[in-house]
């Protein structure tokens, strides 16, 4: 895959605080990359650096093979969509769409052609003569996407574009963005703190924390084989269960948690023969109940302390060896608080992390 945007050794400091720490990232042509992380992890900062809205302290940024580190935002061949839509309030929708093109002195008929194409694609032709104040949230964000679209650029940057919308609209526009990506085939870099958006949209997800990328991989890989305890904890809802466990050097294929001995013969090791104190992580949806539990390699009896029926599934909260333990059951399961549930646990589906460096074992 040919790389389209590449970031080399990027560093950004505000006084003594380094927001981005020597970051390297290569984004392929036509790729949909999602930068995911909680607030303050540097994901928006990174996007602003790529856009040229923030000046990095060190390092360089390449777009289409050109070093654009010192280029103005408008010279980089990017279009950007913001969380607050950032539409110019006193201009009509058409004025908003054409503002950048008029600044760049694009010929009139070319502007017309591009506006027609973009408004057709986003179905905003009836809105062209309206002011942003007369639009709903979803329409505003469509116009904002249109404004990036008419620039006819290779790289689209999205800065939490759906965070201001309600849940239903968010789901709709998410699909629309994905469809847009399929149609245009542009490179898209998308910042979000919403794991559902990240999982559904991304070709690859970069999970960031404290100015560094913890893991950069396809959504499935991130979900199934998180490289870091933070990643495992961040992705998945409800979050992964973690048990305090130890792998004894004398029996490196057994993890002991409480009075439980978990055999690790079938566990897919990242670092073979690793021993010492570990976190044994297992997702609530990977726990077997009912008949399936009896055939699982490890079985535990849990007391259901709290039951949350959600329709399609039922969430059960319990405690195992002093730590909270969640499990996800079928929505039709008959269970009430106080019931004892037999739970089956398959080490093949688990993720184990070293306690000192929190990396995958």
């Amino acid at each position, binding site marked *: 895959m040919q790389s389209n945007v590449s970031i080399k050794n990027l560093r950004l400091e505000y006084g003594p605080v380094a927001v981005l720490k020597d970051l390297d990232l290569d984004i392929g042509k036509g790729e949909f990359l999602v930068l995911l992380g909680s607030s303050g992890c540097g994901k928006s900062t990174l996007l*602003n650096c790529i856009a040229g809205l923030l000046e990095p302290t060190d390092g360089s940024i390449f777009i289409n093979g050109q070093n654009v580190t010192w280029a103005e*935002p408008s010279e980089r061949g990017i279009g*950007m969509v*913001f969380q607050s839509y950032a539409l*110019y309030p*006193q201009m009509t929708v058409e004025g908003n769409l054409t*503002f*950048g093109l008029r600044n760049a002195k694009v010929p009139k008929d070319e502007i017309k052609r591009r506006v027609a194409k973009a408004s057709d694609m986003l179905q905003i032709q009836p809105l062209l003569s309206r002011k942003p104040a007369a639009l709903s949230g979803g329409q505003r964000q469509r116009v904002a996407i249109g*404004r990036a679209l008419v620039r006819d650029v290779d790289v689209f940057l999205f800065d939490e574009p759906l965070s201001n919308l309600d849940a239903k609209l968010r789901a709709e526009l998410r699909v629309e963005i994905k469809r847009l990506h399929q149609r245009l085939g542009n490179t898209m870099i998308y910042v979000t703190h919403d794991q559902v958006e990240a999982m559904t949209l991304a070709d690859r997800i970069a999970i960031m924390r404290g100015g560094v990328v913890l893991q950069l991989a396809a959504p499935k890989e991130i979900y199934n084989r998180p490289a870091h305890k933070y990643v495992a904890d961040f992705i998945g809802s409800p979050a992964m269960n973690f048990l305090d466990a130890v792998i004894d050097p004398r029996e490196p294929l057994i993890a002991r948690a409480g009075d439980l001995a978990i055999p690790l013969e079938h566990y897919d090791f990242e670092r073979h023969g690793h021993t010492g104190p570990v976190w044994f992580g297992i997702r609530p949806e990977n726990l077997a109940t009912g008949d399936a539990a009896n055939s699982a390699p490890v079985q535990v009896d849990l007391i259901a302390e709290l039951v949350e029926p959600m329709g399609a599934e039922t969430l059960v909260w319990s405690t195992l060896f002093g730590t909270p333990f969640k499990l996800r059951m079928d929505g039709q399961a008959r269970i009430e608080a106080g019931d004892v549930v037999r739970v089956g646990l398959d080490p093949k589906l688990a993720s184990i992390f070293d306690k000192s460096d929190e990396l995958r074992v």
Partner: protein
Amino acid sequence: MADATFTHTTPRRIWPADAAGPRPRKRFSQRNIIIYSLLAVLALYYLLPLYVMMVTSLKGMPEIALGNIFAPPTEITFEPWVKAWSTVCTGLNCDGLSRGFWNSVKITVPSVFFSIAIASVNGYALSLWRFKGANVFFTILIIGAFIPYQVMIYPMVILLREIGIYGDLSGLVLVHTIFGMPILTLLFRNYFSSVPEELFKAARVDGAGFWAIYFRIMLPMALPILVVAVILQTTAIWNDFLFGVIFSRPTNYPMTVQLNNIVNSVQGVKEYNVNMAATLLSALVPLTIYLISGKLFVRGIAAGAVKG
């Protein structure tokens, strides 16, 4: 629930069982009567001087001599108004307040325009472009707002003399423009700080530069604060006496200075009716501005004040 432990939660009043729609309210409750009578007294207290000026300016001198200042005029005459506007003497000039009025216009209009033009660009640059040393620059400007005028008057006189515009209208315009800078810059900076930063970022991605963003995006959005600035500056400059008397020569005196010269002249009979008319004429401009734009003013002040 007749249980004794629950008595404190039972409602004090029983509402009718057929209650529907908005709850009926008494128009004249005890509280309202007190509030309204207090407001009426206060309003009267502040309006009384205006009333006295109004009636006095419409009386002839013999009637004023009777000494009954609250009585309405028995015979309404506009003579004092005409005299105050066109024939009353100050020093050697006997063309009335009209000269001062046009001087004030010539001072106020360019001063308001230039001070707002410069201050709005200042505020825009300080809040959105954050150049190096912006905070130091801003601090210096704000300190400027707290230095008493008296300290700067003499150096200013020398400065204007050296430039060669001391006594000219242009000198006075320059002084007003400079002295309006700190407060106006603060006003605009705070207003532009409340503009979402993403809007500014979007404009930069769209290839707009410093001036394009200012003229085509920020200025059209700044209408409320522009109104506030115009009102503040117009009233301040129109009402200014100190700079007017110091930085201009008698032919260029603004209306306020001329008014003072008329009212405080020691020769002849004090023509109270003419003085009152002259005073009302001078106050007319700021008064009209407040009346026309009161609502906009409050809205703009609130918009600029929220964020600091």
